[in-house]
């Protein structure tokens, strides 16, 4: 099928198999390998991307389902060589260790900020409850997001 969507702000038109998974379309067709595959069943959050303003597990969405829609991946966070505020805060707080879960956490946090620029600690925890990190113990991740929220006030 001819797939038309806006990916990271750019209109993309590709001939592809609509029944492949969105994560495979992003990584293999578009070379956007920042989105990581963890559990492949929507439990770990590593493959989280933002589809039409909402965080979704890209391993459980079919490429064809994004037709006419808008997708934001980790590659779309940086603007003109400058990292997103969330990325800067993750670095500053040491919220990144091995880094595999980081794109997913950042996209979950970004989706939260897009809907709710001033989230409470509870809302932050709820937004990332679908993301698993085996290194940090989560505290630094929550602190990084809280700090970013504070700075946006």
């Amino acid at each position, binding site marked *: 099928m001819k797939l038309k969507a806006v990916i990271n702000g750019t209109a993309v038109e590709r001939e592809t198999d609509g*029944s492949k998974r969105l994560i495979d379309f992003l990584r293999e067709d578009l070379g956007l390998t920042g989105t990581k595959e963890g559990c492949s069943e*929507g439990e770990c*959050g590593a493959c989280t991307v933002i589809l039409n303003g909402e965080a*979704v597990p890209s391993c*459980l969405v*079919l490429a*064809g*389902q994004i037709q006419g829609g808008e997708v934001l991946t980790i590659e779309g966070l940086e603007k003109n060589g400058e990292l997103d505020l969330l990325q800067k805060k993750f670095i500053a707080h040491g919220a990144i260790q091995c880094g595999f879960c980081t794109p997913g956490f950042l996209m979950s946090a970004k989706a939260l900020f897009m809907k709710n620029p001033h989230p409470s600690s509870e809302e932050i925890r709820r937004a990332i409850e*679908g*993301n698993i990190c085996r290194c940090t113990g989560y505290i630094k991740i929550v602190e990084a997001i809280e700090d970013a929220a504070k700075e946006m006030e």
Partner: protein
Amino acid sequence: MMFTAPADEKELQAALDQADGRTYLIAGGTDLLIHLQNRKEADCSFIDLTKVKEFQGIREEKDWIDIGSLVTMTELCASPLVKEELRALYLAAYHLGSEQIRNRATLGGAIANASQSSDSSVVLFAYGALVDIISAQGKRRKIPMDQFITGREKTCLDRGEAVSRILIPRRKRSSMFGKVGARKAVTIAKINCAMDFQLEEGLIRKASVYLGAVGVKPVEARLLENYFQGKSFATIALQDVQELGKEEVEKAIPTRPSRFYKRVAVQGLLEDMIGALP
């Protein structure tokens, strides 16, 4: 592999007409794609329902709250109508999976997959919801929820049929949902329960109570229903309710090894739910 995304019921009927045994209807995909991976199924075709316009949105009718099969858990949580009038459904949607899953998982998908531990199914059983089904020929039928799900992951849907909407009878009610899982968030119910009370002058005129994950489909808890009838929320005695809850679990799963856990778990669950009643 084939992928088609009908924009309305008419296009959907044409797609359903071409469907064969390897054609799957997909909405949020949060159950289906995992099932297909586990079964290592390849070469299947998909009909993507997410664009069908007649299956969207929540409608407020005089006698019904009419919920499109494509309405996601996130949309249910965001609806003031659901939050106010359908408390049990709101709670089930609020506590389902993670943010990412709630953004994709649909009410229609939850019932069509008929998982035995489904949170929304047990609520729709308690509400006595009707499932509106459309066929490839454009024929419609409305099936009560307790007849729609026929067994473990089994429904009365025939090939070439799709769930279009879910109708919940509207009345003066108070409803409650609770579940027990292995962890606080992102948890699949080990046991869940929905209660729907029809109230008249502060008294429970009729109670509909279902327990989930204690059988292949939600089980009606008649002992509890009879107990509640005629009482007010203030006169419910927790210990009596817990005792009856234990009996219900024994009755539902007399031989399953999990009965030892679940007949205790149900008491904590009922304590949570009764404590949360207005």
